[in-house]
């Protein structure tokens, strides 16, 4: 349809509906450096990793996660270059190793596991996470908090057990590594967000 036929009387356009990402995005959306958000070799790099589970507690091997966050200085402008491509072959060049784009994209593997390497955000200490999956008709937003900031209105408004689902936990036996699992359904169901 064309936009002229869509404009409603209050001057807004009704949105295009969401659909599931389906099972076959794997050759289109993931890219080799998708989880390498931190510039190569940066000493402040942290790893955030975990598993995505369904309502039966089984890992989901065909979910796609996207991450968006502030840069270490708190800026939210991002930078191009996450998907940098090779103009000779049309293939992926990989990130330039210098710029911090603030954006990451990783599919879960056959075990339902994902990992991203990034820099701690400045300002509010969370990574925004957008979840796509076969079977999920409309993506879901959540947040991976690396810290529990005082006065955070989202966290303070949640029951402790629900709040816990948004907290990425530092793993004592691993170097600068945080565990953040996502449960789409069930007793440990992750808190998912709506923005207005």
């Amino acid at each position, binding site marked *: 349809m064309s936009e002229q036929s869509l404009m409603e009387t209050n001057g807004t356009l009704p949105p295009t*509906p969401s659909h599931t990402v389906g099972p076959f995005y794997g050759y289109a959306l993931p890219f080799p450096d998708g989880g390498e958000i931190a510039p190569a070799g940066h000493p402040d790099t942290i790893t955030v990793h975990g598993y995505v589970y369904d309502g039966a507690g089984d890992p989901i091997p065909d979910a796609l996660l996207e991450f968006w966050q502030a840069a270490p200085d708190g800026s939210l402008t991002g930078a191009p270059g996450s998907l940098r491509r*090779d103009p000779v072959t049309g293939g992926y060049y990989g990130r330039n190793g210098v710029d911090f784009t603030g954006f990451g994209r990783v599919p879960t593997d056959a075990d339902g596991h994902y990992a991203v390497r990034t820099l701690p955000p400045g300002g509010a200490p969370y990574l925004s996470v957008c979840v796509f999956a076969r079977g999920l008709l409309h993506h879901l937003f959540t947040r991976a908090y690396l810290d529990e900031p005082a006065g955070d209105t989202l966290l303070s408004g949640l029951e402790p057990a629900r709040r816990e689902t948004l907290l990425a936990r530092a793993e004592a036996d691993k170097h600068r590594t945080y565990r953040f699992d996502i449960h789409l359904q069930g007793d440990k169901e992750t808190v998912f967000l709506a923005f207005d």
Partner: protein
Amino acid sequence: MALTQHDIDREVTELQDAYDKARAGGAPAAHHPPRDYAPYRSSALRHPKQPLVAVHGDPETVELSGPAFGTTDVTALDNDLTKQHHGEPLGERITVSGRLLDGRGRPVRGQLVEVWQANASGRYAHQRDDHPAPLDPNFTGVGRVLTGDDGSYSFTTIKPGAYPWRNHANAWRPAHIHFSLFGDAFTQRLVTQMYFPNDPLFPYDPILRSVTDESARQRLIATYDHDLSQPEFSLGYRWDIVLDGPSATWIEEGR
């Protein structure tokens, strides 16, 4: 026992009737599919049962900004899916063009549009699609482009075929192209599918029917546009896309 199309049709009709009745009673329009939609069997264990928690954003809210993409993220050939191999792909060559807009009708500029699709025979270049239709050595089915200053995008590709899937016995998806879209804010993120007009499979497809609002379903269907057709070359389809969700710009403007 495997579910039949008749079983799925019955469930789809019940949910459609419930929605239509609610609308007649004054309920607001549902622009998006419910995440819990039983006729699409894979949704059963993959939707949250708790309500979403509302976040009242301020300009510092991370999700009200979003990732940036630029000229290094695409190459000039990425929006022509017919030129990724040495030969021409089989199928009906098409041009798909439109504009990416926000909910106020303003163009979304310089943002990333990604597409993927089956080939003309309805087969994806993906190991998990193993149904007996031929792969096309000259077609992968992936493209990307940045929107122009007027929010416009355009792809050259071939019309994808319908294909079977295992939701129920004799389940077939109508021909579609998958689209992934970014707005100015991460809240505006959208992944969806574009359909072709007058596909006889529409009534049978629980994924399309998961959008219970009829006018919303129509917004997923491209329009044949003869002015977009190119002589001796391709048939033209127009599809405009409108993103949902607030952005920091809106809040700074006082909404």
